[in-house]
């Protein structure tokens, strides 16, 4: 049996930024363990450090100090190329502003992560079509992302996040730019992913959507305030 049930382990994570002569400490000692298959909601007021924490967990940023194990691998000191590999293969990103590439089609957008991993043309097209179908966008594959609605864009983004079949989904306010109907749609898809056994870490402002989550972590002023299941 594989015993790495902890997909993420953070030990005493600090993060500070230097702006001019002054130093801002954003994270002041974060200890956090996330098990495989959890659906985490990360909440907190602006400036609490939740975005910074999400960036570190998403391997877009490195902690100033502390230990960060992702799937058992020490990440905090690894190379940029290795971080890129982890993002490409182990993580899937969903952004508040969707961040689809406007000049290529919906289908190509979903293919991008597989393209970066060197998946062959036929295989990645086949998988992209399947994923787009599963999020209900099969009829829009040849559209430019600029010509579809916000809800559709976010569903394309979810399909893209799943392209390389990652263990962990990083979602930064995925419903922040959506109306209620589309928010519910997106949350339904995320819940289904959770039920399939994927680990989801989601930053949100909206307490209503946390009811789908298995655990809510509240941050304030760079520390974990509450860690409630």
């Amino acid at each position, binding site marked *: 049996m594989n015993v790495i049930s902890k997909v993420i382990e953070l030990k005493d994570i600090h993060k500070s930024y230097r702006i001019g002569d002054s130093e801002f400490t954003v994270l002041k000692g974060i200890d956090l363990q996330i098990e495989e298959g959890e659906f985490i909601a990360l909440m907190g007021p602006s400036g609490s450090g939740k975005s910074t924490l999400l960036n570190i967990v998403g391997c877009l940023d490195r902690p100033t100090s502390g230990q960060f194990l992702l799937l058992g691998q020490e990440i905090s000191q690894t190379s940029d190329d290795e971080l890129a*590999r982890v993002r490409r293969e182990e993580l899937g990103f969903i952004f508040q502003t969707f961040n689809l590439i406007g000049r290529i089609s919906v289908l190509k957008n979903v293919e991008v992560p597989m*393209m970066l991993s060197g998946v062959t043309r036929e295989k990645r097209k086949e998988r992209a079509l399947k994923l787009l179908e599963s999020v209900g966008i099969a009829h829009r594959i040849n559209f430019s992302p600029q010509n579809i609605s916000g809800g559709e864009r976010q569903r394309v983004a979810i399909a893209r996040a799943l392209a390389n079949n990652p263990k962990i989904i990083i979602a930064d306010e995925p419903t922040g730019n959506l109306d209620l109907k589309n928010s519910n749609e997106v949350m339904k898809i995320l819940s289904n992913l959770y039920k399939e056994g994927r680990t989801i870490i989601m930053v949100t402002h909206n307490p209503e959507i946390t009811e789908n989550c298995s655990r809510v972590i509240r941050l304030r002023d760079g520390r974990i305030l509450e860690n409630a299941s």
Partner: protein
Amino acid sequence: MNLPDILEFIAVGFKADRFKTLMSSLGIIIGVMAIVVMLSVGEGLYSGVSSQFSSLDLDMIQVMPGSAHFGGPGSENANRNPAEPAKFTDKDTKVLENVVGVKNVAPRSSANVVVAFRNTNSSASLTGVDPDKEEDLKDEVAQGRFLTGSDYKSIVIGDGVSNDLFRMRITPGNKIRLYYEDRYMDFKVVGVMEEAEQTSFGGPGSDEDNLMYITHKAMEELKGEDNYYYGNFQVTVYDPEQVDSIIEKIKNDLKRYHKDEAYDATTARDMLSSLMSVLSMIKYALAGIGAISLLVGGIGIANVMMLTVKERIREIGVMKALGATTRDIRMQYLLEAGVLGMVSSVIGIVLGVTVSYLIGSLASLPSAITYQSLVLGVLFGVVTTTIAGVYPANRAAKLDPIEALRAE
């Protein structure tokens, strides 16, 4: 990320920004075209002139007063020539005739004169010759005869003087009057030379056709100077292979009489090679002008690439978040510049060849398209754009994904 995928990405970008792509490639297209055209015209000039001179007699040495080099900054005699030009006399003819290997020595002198024929005046070049030493010229007479040693007031004229200088043709038997400074003499035309071989540079009425020949005796009389000197010697040798060593001997032997005077002995080959080196300089100078426009094109590409990177900053952030490495991004933008350069260069080559061809056929300017100029054109085009792409590509590759994602 593998090559076909990157290329597909680039192609999509070009298509989306057709106008911007066209405008940025225009600089390279024009630059490459300029290089090809300039090199072709230069090469045409070069080969045109060299084919013109390849028929020059290689067994001929010219001995003349002063320095005969074409000058030019690299010329060896350029600076050490303060001496008076040598004054050549019959003594020198003897000296030259005594050099081993010399077949014939033809002393010549020249003057620009005004020709009067039936109350009309025109100018032509006059050469004083020793008829006994000019066997070659005797073969080129078309009408009448060449001069003989006993001729005095007889003249042989070139085809141009006969046909083109005056309204009326001058034929053997006609009398003409020559003016030199404030003196004049009447001559009787005894012969007309053949028309000189047509050249693309001169054509009818070239200098060679406007020549006239009289004896040294008449020349001395016409010039009326106290001392008559030869202008130069046309020395023919038996063996063209030995021309260089004979030149050395000639220079040495003449030292006896012309210790502190300047003189030189050269062959047509010498003249040809210095002329060729000048032409080759001109050729590359022309290409240099083309290269400058290419450089400007390169700066244009760099500018457009910087703009592209700035425009796509968010896309670059997304690509990085999705796991693109620094290398992936760098390759994408470097290749984008490179492909732009390649396509533009090929278009530039096609246009350059067309323009060179048009120049060659319409303006009757010599132009020769060489393999070398095409390769140079493409090479410079691709290298310039790729170099222009390096900085923007590195900027893109080194973007921090978090900041790039935050960009508007």
